[in-house]
């Protein structure tokens, strides 16, 4: 966490909090010990490309158990009743919403932006570009991670 560009931390944390609190009624905090979040549990990753005004990549990785609890909260049902398709869709929509909030916070208000459609994969790490950093977040059910990749983010640095 110490190596993460600090100018992204505040806007990203705000975006994650707003999204999870509104959609899943869950409180989210950066963990006091990020190293504890590197669990290696089986999980899912959603990847979203930012097309304009920068070209960059954002990824959200979440262990299956955490995604199950988030999904259950959003759909107000038991985690076991949710299909794989629903879980994928929820992760994609969470990333889509977080990315929009994050970019809206970072960019000047007169600057429109354009994003691609999120893609969900099974597994943890599909970032294809050099990474800017990993940001971990903790819920009552476990941790998840957001990764910013690609040199495009440099244009928004401070």
């Amino acid at each position: 966490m110490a190596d993460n560009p600090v100018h992204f931390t505040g806007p990203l944390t705000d975006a994650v909090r707003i999204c999870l609190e509104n959609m899943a009624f869950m409180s989210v905090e950066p963990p006091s010990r990020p190293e504890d979040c590197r669990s290696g549990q089986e999980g899912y990753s959603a990847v979203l490309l930012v097309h304009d005004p920068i070209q960059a990549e954002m990824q959200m990785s979440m262990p299956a158990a955490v995604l199950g609890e988030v999904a259950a909260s959003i759909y107000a049902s038991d985690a076991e009743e949710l299909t794989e398709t629903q879980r994928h869709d929820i992760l994609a929509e969470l990333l889509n919403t977080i990315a929009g909030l994050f970019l809206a916070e970072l960019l000047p208000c007169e600057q429109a932006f354009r994003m691609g459609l999120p893609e969900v994969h099974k597994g943890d790490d599909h970032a294809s570009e050099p990474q800017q950093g990993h940001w971990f977040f903790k819920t009552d059910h476990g941790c998840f991670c957001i990764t910013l990749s690609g040199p495009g983010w440099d244009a928004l640095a401070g």
Partner: protein
Amino acid sequence: MNRIIIADDSDTARMFIRRCLEIVGLHEAEFIEAVNGNEALKIAKQEPPDLLVSDLNMPVMDGETLLKWVKTSPRLVDVPVLVITSAGNPAKEAQLLELGAFAVLNKPVSPAPLLKVLAPLLAEDSDG
């Protein structure tokens, strides 16, 4: 408002928007869901809705194109289009309002801002 079309490629987003619309008092409306702008346009042409809620970023036909089609179709021009998007900021909002959107809200949507923008339509309903 009896007939509401919700266009979004995400099942989760459609469910969430529908839930918020029900909370603000539209629990008796008929909700028709579409997974992209093209599907929403086809449904709207068959029978114009009282409200069209649309995402922007969708495959096949995006929400901005859908808005342009609705606002240039004599049969649909009066349908209020509420855009709910994750790619919203003041610049985009101004552009969409210029194209004829009734209102623009950012995701994640919640009942309070939804109620605020829909108040004029809900008032028309209760008057009529």
